[in-house]
């Protein structure tokens, strides 16, 4: 059983390394970073306590929001999805990404206290 899982994972990683364009890999690295930051924040909250609860929430929401926006950018940039995003060029996707981030950070900074 575990054998097949390991073989599936290794195959997946091979496929990923070979067929994914570099741009998407860059974004994936960014996604990993965001996820780790969020996880570490959550770990702190579990271990030490929720004392400045608003700060924890804003940090965590920032991570979650950034992750989602980055995922959206990745989807829109992916050349394989071009058929679904005919009117949205990669530049447009990036601009949207920047704008959404501005709004997100405005709210996050407001809430961080």
């Amino acid at each position, binding site marked *: 059983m575990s054998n097949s899982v390991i073989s599936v994972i290794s195959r997946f990683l091979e496929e990923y390394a070979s067929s994914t364009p570099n741009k998407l*890999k860059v974004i994936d690295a960014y996604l990993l970073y965001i996820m780790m930051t969020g996880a570490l924040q959550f770990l702190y909250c579990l271990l*030490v306590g929720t004392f400045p609860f608003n700060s924890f929430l804003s940090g965590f929401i920032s991570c979650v929001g950034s992750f989602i926006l980055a995922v959206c950018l990745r989807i829109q940039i992916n050349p394989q999805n071009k058929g679904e995003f005919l009117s949205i*060029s990669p530049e447009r996707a990036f*601009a949207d990404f920047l704008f959404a981030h501005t709004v997100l950070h405005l709210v996050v900074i407001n809430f961080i206290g």
Partner: protein
Amino acid sequence: MAHLCLFSLLVLSLVLETQALTPTHHLTTTDVARLQAVLSQPFTDLKSAYYSVVGLSKLGISVADAAETCRFIKSNLDPSSVESLFFAAEASQALPGCEIPVSNDTRDLLLATVSEDSTASQIHQSVSALSSLGLPLASQEVVSALKARISKEDNVLTIILALQTASRLSQQAELGEILEEIEDLAARLDDLGGVYLQFEEGLEATALFVSAAYALSDHVDMEPPLKEDQVIQLVNSIFSKKSWDSLSEAFSVASAAESLSNNRFHVPVIVSAQGPAAISHSQPFLRLQVTNVLCKPLSSASVLVESATATSSKSAILSQAPFTLRDGVFELNFMASQPASGYYQFSVAIAGDSRFVANHVELKVKVSTRVSINNMDLSVVDKDQSIGPKTTRVEYPAKAKASFMADSHQIFAMTFQLVDETTGVELTPHQTFVRLHNQKTGQEVVFVAEPDSKNLYKFELDTTERKTEFDSISGTYALYLMVGDATLENPILWNVADVVLKFLDEEAPSTIQAKTLYTPKPEIQHLFREPEKKPPTVVSNAFTALVLSPFLLLLILWFKLGANISNFTLSPSTVLFHIGHAAMLGLMYVYWTHLNMFQTLKYLAIIGSFTFLAGNRMLAQKAVKRLERK
């Protein structure tokens, strides 16, 4: 028709009268004296002379100096004024031997005033003046003038004046319609709480209405259509005010009082007890004053107790017992029926004249007595009842010679009986208290002694049970017995004995603290909300570093992937875009530290629009380049 109407009203009033009202307000002798003083004030003009002279005559008092008053009236008379003639004529009528000279012009003036065009007051004044001066007048003309006046002016005072005028006319005239006005006017009275009945125009109007209505009713010899309750309510309204604003108000009250005392139909009776309605062996007579509204005793009355019942047991003590008249006061020896002490409800009826109104009165009478204490036995009993109690008998008002000792194993007991001194009947007064007073510390504790089923009072003091009341302080306590009640004439405070109480010493407080009820209490310090516990700085710092560490990981990964900025063109829009974007991030930091949302939005709008334009340009250029590459 009018006769039948009045007769049926009379029958109806008799049938309906189940719970008759009694006057709650009446004039006392001091009030009548005050009224007389007001009316006896020296007069300044003819009007005040009229009020004083005629008012005093209504109270049955003659003016001090009649001759001087007559001269004053004659000198102040103005023969060309109807009002002046009216005042003079009426006042001279009340004074003995005072005649006003009358000329033909005067008579013509008065007769001419009797017409539809004069006001009701003018008609009243001229008719009264004509009748007082003994001049002839045409009654029928007056009646028609009055009727016309009433139909034009329907107010209360006009109708009252019409009634007064009609009472001076000849009995042959047709006064029927004017007589009916009494009933209409009575319907206009305002009933206040079932106690008062008065016109909204005030006390004077109500009092004048009463005197006018009875004057006219007496004149035509027909009972006025006023029910007994209404008469009593009118009495309450008129006599509730004991000091009068003006001479005319005092005059109206005096004339109302006179008409209510002397008319042929309704005479309200005022019954009041002389002093408090309390009877005892030293004062066995219940004395009642029975007077009319002017405080004159009604000697023709016969006063009867219809029933006297005890309020507690509802048993009738007396029935149909008459009062005897002595010195203008009606008295009854109630103690002769040997009533037990307590409160009694008396129902008294006053008979003797069919005109009497409110002649059934309810009175509450108190019978008091003296109490004596019998068989006061004090003893100290052992709790285990092994040793028999030694009882000491004490006689009131002596004190027991030896003091009693009671410690935690013993009970101090007291029994006694309370009896009526004269009859020997057992009593249960409202207050039977046993008070223990520590002379050294000033402490006192009060207990209640309760009677058992045989009316024997018992009091037991168990030292262990009651130690909290005494604060466990041992010592000599003086024992007092307190007996009191509303129906007792001799309340008792008797120092019966001294009791030495021994409590277990270790429970006694070392110092005796006076009850600190009124000393300042300890100050309360306000506790501000304590800030929450923060984790140690080491931990927060460690985690800050930990949370920032993935950024390093990101940089490493990007480097490994070969992400670079080789495509970075140095075109102005690119540079400007990057500057603008950096400025926006800087603004976020400044927002966190200094600004509020509104300021930030303002700056963000400026920087954002700049960045947008630059970015748009840059991205467009990038897109073109991408498409060219394709």
